[in-house]
């Protein structure tokens, strides 16, 4: 677990490594900054996204996720710093990089008067590697993958938000990709759709595609991610693998009992600082090397404490995320 910056991207010398180290990262940014006026929307961002990972990019609304993604794709220029996608510099090499990158940026956007299929064909025809001969088949496969085959002939303006999102995903999957950058892919989807997207992401990752997934809802993606980065107010609060993130959380012991005054001293003998709960019972933070729970429980009972409940809790990733980004999911600015 590293806070703010991974060790291999935090020093400038890390920018001139051998080809092996560079190839290992699908996305790498160094000191990436975007200012709009005086406000640094993205501030000194050092991202390191390993190839083959499913990388959760988290942060409340307004924390700079989409701006970062726009810089990754060369849509907007950086005020400072560097971006490398698949080992090559952005925006200089976008023409050769982007054919290997599929993306959904700030929601789907298509021509309302065209059908889903026509929309995909239109975008496909606008760039390299969109061979006409294979277009129909590629569109069919992509629509099938996102479950949109039945609505392929409907005009885009008649699509629901979830269907639009699916068409955006189909567009990202239209050609073979090494990297997928998906900005809030489950936005507007029902729980069933969200589950399908998770399944799809797992499938893609299984095929070896690196998936960079942004969201403001950790619970929607924590089941698929291997790595996580958390943004808040334009800065990276943490990044690392999921086990690393879990290791930062503090476990708590909760004892439900009417005998607070008896239980407190017992817990103190084990070096635990207990605080009374509002509805009765005690809560104590557990150290990194906690005493065995079964021994604690026996000691409590031996001391005459009537135990109704005895739980060792680990906060959910969601709680950790909230702790890192401040209270709640309000718009950060």
């Amino acid at each position, binding site marked *: 677990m590293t806070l703010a910056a991974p060790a291999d991207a935090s020093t400038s010398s890390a920018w001139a490594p051998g080809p092996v180290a560079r190839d290992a990262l699908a996305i790498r940014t160094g000191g990436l900054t975007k200012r709009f006026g005086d406000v640094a929307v993205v501030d000194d961002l050092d991202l390191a996204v390993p190839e083959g990972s499913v990388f959760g990019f988290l942060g409340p609304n307004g924390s700079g996720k989409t701006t970062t993604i*726009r810089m990754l*794709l*060369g*849509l*907007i*220029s950086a005020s400072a710093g560097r971006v490398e996608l698949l080992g090559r510099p952005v925006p200089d090499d*976008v*023409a050769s990089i*982007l*054919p290997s*990158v599929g*993306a959904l*940026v*700030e*929601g789907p*956007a*298509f*021509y*309302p*008067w065209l059908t889903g299929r026509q929309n995909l064909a*239109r*975008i496909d*025809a*606008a*760039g*390299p590697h*969109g061979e006409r001969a294979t277009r129909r088949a590629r569109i069919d496969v992509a629509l099938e993958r996102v479950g949109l085959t039945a609505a392929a002939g409907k005009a885009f303006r008649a699509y629901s938000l979830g269907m639009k999102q699916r068409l955006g995903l189909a*567009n990202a999957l239209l050609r073979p990709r090494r990297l997928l950058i998906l900005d809030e892919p489950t936005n507007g989807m029902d729980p069933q759709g969200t589950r399908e997207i998770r399944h799809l992401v797992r499938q893609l990752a299984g095929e070896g595609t690196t998936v960079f997934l942004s969201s403001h809802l950790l619970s929607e993606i924590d089941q698929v991610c291997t790595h996580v980065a958390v943004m808040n107010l334009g800065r990276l609060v943490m990044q690392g693998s999921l086990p690393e993130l879990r290791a930062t959380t503090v476990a708590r012991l909760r004892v439900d009992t009417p005998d607070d005054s008896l239980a407190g001293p017992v817990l103190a003998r084990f070096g635990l600082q207990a605080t009374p709960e509002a509805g009765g019972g005690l809560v104590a933070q557990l150290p990194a090397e906690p005493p065995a729970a079964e021994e604690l429980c026996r000691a409590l009972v031996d001391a005459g404490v009537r135990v109704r409940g005895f739980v060792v809790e680990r906060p959910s990733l969601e709680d950790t995320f909230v702790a890192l980004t401040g209270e709640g999911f309000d718009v950060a600015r």
Partner: protein
Amino acid sequence: MLLAELAHLFRRRRTLALLVALALVPIGIAVALKVSGGPGGGGEGPTFLNQVTNNGVFASLVGLTVTLPVFLPLATAIVAGDAIAGEAGLGTLRYLMIRPAGRSRLLAVKAATIVVFCVVAALVVSVAGLAVGTALFPVGRVTTLSGDTIALGDGMVRIAAASGVVGLSLLGLAAIGFFISTFTDVAIGAMAGTLGVLVLSGVLDAVPQLSSIHPWLFTHGWLTFSDLLRTDVNWTGIEHNLALQAGYVVVFGSAAWARFTTRDVLA
């Protein structure tokens, strides 16, 4: 990609509606002439109008003359103003960018499409006029502005050339609209701005005190296409007009390129 873009533009219902509306202008005029039984009013009205009942092919030229001040520029402003701003407004611009279409390439394709549209729009007017004219009126040797008559074939060639010149005359305005289009995500704003420039140019052209700048206004030479209908074609005005349009295209085309290749795509 150019073919795909052309197909995209010309399959769009709005584009077709514009072209149909343009075609209806000469058709409407010819039908009105037929119904009323002649031009009447003793030589008033647009150039060539009196000739239509004698020779249907003149409906083409009347169509061009009537649509050139407003309808053709309006269609041009809509298509040129929409070119980039429309994509930005829909958000499709970012998906074209990450396709990657390439900024310069996208700009070149859009520009070429606009040029095609301008020429097609003028041809639609002229072909519709020709069709309705030959259907409703006799067709024969073509009387030139100089008063002579020339063979029908020669006249047709000159009408075709006039249509082409009219189409190319719109390019200066198109270049300005295209340039404005790179500045905004609101297509209707770009269209309105382009029309504003059109009106400004027309107004300046009407102020005699500003005669020194008149030759440099992109609307000034628009009616020179009629010089093609003189027995001995007077090329001076046409050449100056086309050179001026080319100048506008170079200046505003470069400005659009400078703007678009460096701007942040935020929409």
